[in-house]
């Protein structure tokens, strides 16, 4: 069985899906990613699907599952590079990519992760009563 490579770039794991994945390969990617998030402590995952010419219900479900798993492991997932024809087909298929953030390309995906991360840190500060400052 072929495996999809996972690259670490700074604080982000980048997965660029270059092959027509079998269901087994998709499931293996899900597991590999969970392990890599824990092993590296990365807080962001970018899944680049530019090369995918279809996303069916199985791959769609895999993307949602990866997003949920990474959330639990304190990482943000962004899916980038969806082709217009794929987006049109997904909607007609009835698949809502629940809980999945999307961005146009890898660069935008990185910005989104950085922004989400900053919000999260803000929120944690706001939550901490000692960190509260009086507004003038």
């Amino acid at each position, binding site marked *: 069985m072929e495996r999809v490579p996972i690259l670490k770039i700074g604080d982000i794991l980048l997965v660029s899906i270059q092959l*027509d*994945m*079998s*269901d*087994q390969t998709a499931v293996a990617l899900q597991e590999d990613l969970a392990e890599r998030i824990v092993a590296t402590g990365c807080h962001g995952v970018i899944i680049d699907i530019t090369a995918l*010419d*279809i*996303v*069916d*219900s*199985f791959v*769609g*479900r895999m993307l949602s599952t990866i997003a949920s798993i990474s959330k639990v492991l304190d990482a943000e997932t962004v899916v980038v590079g969806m*082709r*217009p*024809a*794929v987006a*049109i*087909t997904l909607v*007609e*298929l*009835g*698949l809502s990519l629940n809980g999945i953030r999307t961005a146009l390309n890898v660069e935008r995906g990185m910005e989104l992760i950085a922004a989400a991360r900053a919000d999260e840190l803000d929120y944690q500060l706001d939550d901490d009563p000692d960190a509260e400052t009086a507004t003038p």
Partner: protein
Amino acid sequence: MTAGIDLGHPQAQAIRSDEDVVRVRQLVRGVAVAVKLSLVDQTKVVTAASELARNTLVYGGGGTVEVATVDNGRRRGVRIVFADSGPGIPDLDLAFTDGYTTGGGLGLGLSGARRLVDEFEIETSPETGTRITVTKWSR
């Protein structure tokens, strides 16, 4: 309605593993390109084929697919027949309901595939298994 004259021989492919589901997608893509379907229509028919091939494997216990070009005098298209000798689908209305699944899926395969093609026919019984014929025409 299944109007259309077959052109050439259908290409057959067994569906026994998830690697075969990948092959079905590639086979359908090739024929969809050959009959000059638009990119969006190619994507739709390949996605529908992927859903139906997976159902054939998972619920039908494996089976076969035949992919052929069709021509109705005005348009060309791709016709795909999925056949298995599995248990059949007892309640079709239920099976075509978005979200209905007996296998822990999303329950979108059958209903979604029907939306993605132009013609969709299904014959199913516990004796003969399930046979689904779909057609997508060029515009």
